[in-house]
């Protein structure tokens, strides 16, 4: 029997999802034995024409990582959707928009203005910015159009499954691959990770505040971090209560709080809103003034509560500057 064809493609990503495949270490040889990669730009050649020449749904599964930020990325995502039986949004950026999705607080013009004009190391007397088409003596040079907004993968194409994490951990990757190969898959739209909150398995859970006791929010650099006590109990923002389990508490093992790269559980619509409600339930304030004082000590709630999920959230982007 022919091996199932697999594509692994990157959009607006950092390459960390590719590294996560290489970090399968010895297991990667098993994967290569079981499947045929038709696209894997980090690792091998492919031609756009070859992909176009495939029959519709000929690729068994496409793993697509990165958000969608340029027309080229959108084009590839759509092409892969057409050619694939299953599409998996791989990693936090494809799943939720990811940290680069914080760019949705800004727009293209603001980014170009700073990066190519105002950055202190730039000297650009003629106000040059990159253009989709540039005529040079020998011909035209092209660049893909840069969008105003970062999109999640499922805002551009239909997605069958989500493999969460920045980057997804090796055990969940192997489980997902095994599930796909065996056809033993959960309902469409599932996130391929446990459906409970991170606090559920966190070693620090016994010290998690069960009632309103937080008087002050503190920042990680301001205090010595207790390696055993729940971060919330220390007054430190930890996204655990609003975040899906399955990462192995990697950040917490390094004595740093969670920032939510797995997104929320299936019962939650909006990760940031969920965290806000979880936080509200442990804040100890008797009157409005006290509440104001405590909430004022939370710096950049939008940026921290939506560290990975702004494009996927109900907010999606800052509206008053959108001009697409």
């Amino acid at each position, binding site marked *: 029997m022919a091996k199932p064809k697999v594509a692994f493609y990157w959009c607006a990503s950092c390459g960390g999802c590719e590294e996560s495949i290489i970090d399968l270490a010895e297991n990667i040889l098993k994967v290569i034995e079981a499947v045929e990669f038709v696209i894997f730009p980090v690792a091998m*050649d492919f031609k756009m024409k070859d992909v176009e020449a495939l029959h519709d749904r000929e690729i068994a599964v496409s793993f697509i990582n990165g958000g969608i930020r340029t027309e080229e990325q959108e084009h590839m995502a759509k092409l892969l959707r057409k050619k694939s039986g299953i599409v998996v949004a791989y990693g936090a950026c494809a799943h939720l928009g990811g940290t680069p999705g914080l*760019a949705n607080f800004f727009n293209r013009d603001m980014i170009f203005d700073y*990066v190519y004009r105002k950055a202190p190391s730039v000297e650009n007397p003629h106000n040059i910015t*990159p253009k989709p088409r540039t005529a040079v003596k020998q011909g035209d040079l092209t660049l893909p159009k840069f969008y105003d907004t970062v999109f999640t993968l499922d805002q551009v194409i239909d997605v069958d499954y989500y493999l969460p994490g920045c980057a997804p951990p090796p055990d969940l990757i192997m489980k997902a691959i095994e599930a796909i190969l065996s056809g033993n898959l959960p309902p469409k739209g599932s996130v391929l990770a446990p459906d409970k909150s991170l606090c559920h398995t966190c070693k620090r859970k016994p010290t998690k505040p069960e009632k309103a006791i937080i008087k002050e929010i503190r920042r990680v*650099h301001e205090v010595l971090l207790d390696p055993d006590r729940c971060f919330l109990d220390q007054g430190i923002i930890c996204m655990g209560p609003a975040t899906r389990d399955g990462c192995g508490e990697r*950040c917490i093992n390094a*004595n740093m709080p969670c920032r939510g790269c797995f997104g929320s559980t299936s019962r939650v619509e909006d990760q940031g809103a969920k965290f806000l409600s979880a936080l509200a339930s442990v804040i100890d304030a008797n009157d409005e003034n006290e509440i104001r004082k405590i909430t004022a000590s939370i710096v950049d709630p939008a940026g921290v509560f939506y560290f990975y999920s702004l494009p996927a959230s109900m907010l999606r982007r800052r509206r008053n500057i959108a001009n697409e």
Partner: protein
Amino acid sequence: MSKRITIDPITRLEGHGKIEIFLDDRGNVEKTYFQVPELRGFEVFSIGRPAEEMPRITPKICGVCPTTHHMCSTKALDDLYKVDPPATAKKLRELMYSAFMLEDHMLHFFFLGGPDFIAGPSAPPAERNILGVISKVGLDIAGKVIRLRRECRDVITHFGGRVIHPVCGLPGGISKPLKEEDRLRIVDVAKNGVEFAQFALKIFEDIVLKNKEYVDLILGDVYKHATYYMGLVDKNNKVNFYDGDIRVVTPEGKEFARFKPGEYLSHITERVEPWSYVKFPYLKNVGWKGFVDGIDSGVYRVAPLARLNVSDGMATPLAQAEFERMYATLGLKPVHNTLAFHWARLIEALYAAERMLELAQDGEITDPHVRNIPTATPEEGIGVVEAPRGTLFHHYKTDKNGIITEANLVVATVNNAAAICMSIEKAAKSLIREGKVSEGLLNMVEMAFRAYDPCFACATHILPGKTPLFINIYSKNGDMIKTVGKG
């Protein structure tokens, strides 16, 4: 007939890369362009974020070298809050960083750049990858490479929580100390690393240096550019990855500048071109003269060979001996031969392993005091480290509350952007003649940029069979007349 050759995608440098080669009427190369077709705007969306989140935000620039951005950002925060970390915290950071440099350099040699030499530059593509390396040096070696990589990455995970985007850096220190039992494990990894780095140099000697054809290729004019060089040095002018002054030498090897990280804006300027999302840095005090080399052009190079060229040696004994041997063999300093980046990279890997061992055996390394809490009012901070791919600058300004108001990043590979364009053009001009474009020649064009280990070089040589380049040749009116594939 005028032709156009497109190499796309060459993948990743903040995403992807693309090379356009224009041939003249006789089929010789007239001009090449190296384009980066992606941008994400980290400098801008950092605005409004709490400064202490920057070591968690900026690694997302690159999942291949997140440890570098994490470390650079953390150092920028030290400077922002004017807080000096405890000696042990600095050593732990450097220990983690040395493990990273070792595994990253080894990955490049065995999986990415090395196959060109070990399997051979004109070997069939199916052999010019890690499998070709295995068949030449043996399967057990490949197993050792995978093991060393995994062990080093476990060391990074130990501190950073995760190896893809570590989280442990804080202004004034690191989030947790090192325990004795973990220290012992790291000593073993480092010892193994020293042994393996020496072994890699032996392979390089046996397979590359004893082969006249390869040595001629290294020394030949195709891969040579007389540029300025930049890199971090310690107070004795020895190579340092984690800290020091930035030193710049002229194409003749004379010290041109030596400056503190905080002075980078007096020395580096970036140019914008309309045909690429990447900017082109050059030496401000020499000026931009175009994509050319020589003493009058502000183009400079960074990364392994550049670091060795700007230094007076290595701070560890085994690496120092290799440093001396390289310059004795190649004759001149600075070495301008781009392919010597591979050799320099292995010498650096040995230094990283030796340094890792020194630090893991340091009497202070398990001291539990690893944080100094910042007390100063933040305003501006600049951090520098040497990434595997060159000097990296993070520059932040904040309000009094430590919220970012401005962020400027000069990313490692970007320093080499102009030189990479030049190297590709020179190799293409030398190798593509009268329209004859063979697969082997194209690989030799690729070798021009792969030597720099730019992030997009990860695109090649990992899995069997194929490399990611393909070339379409167009007639003047845009019809595709030929495809040169690579697999």
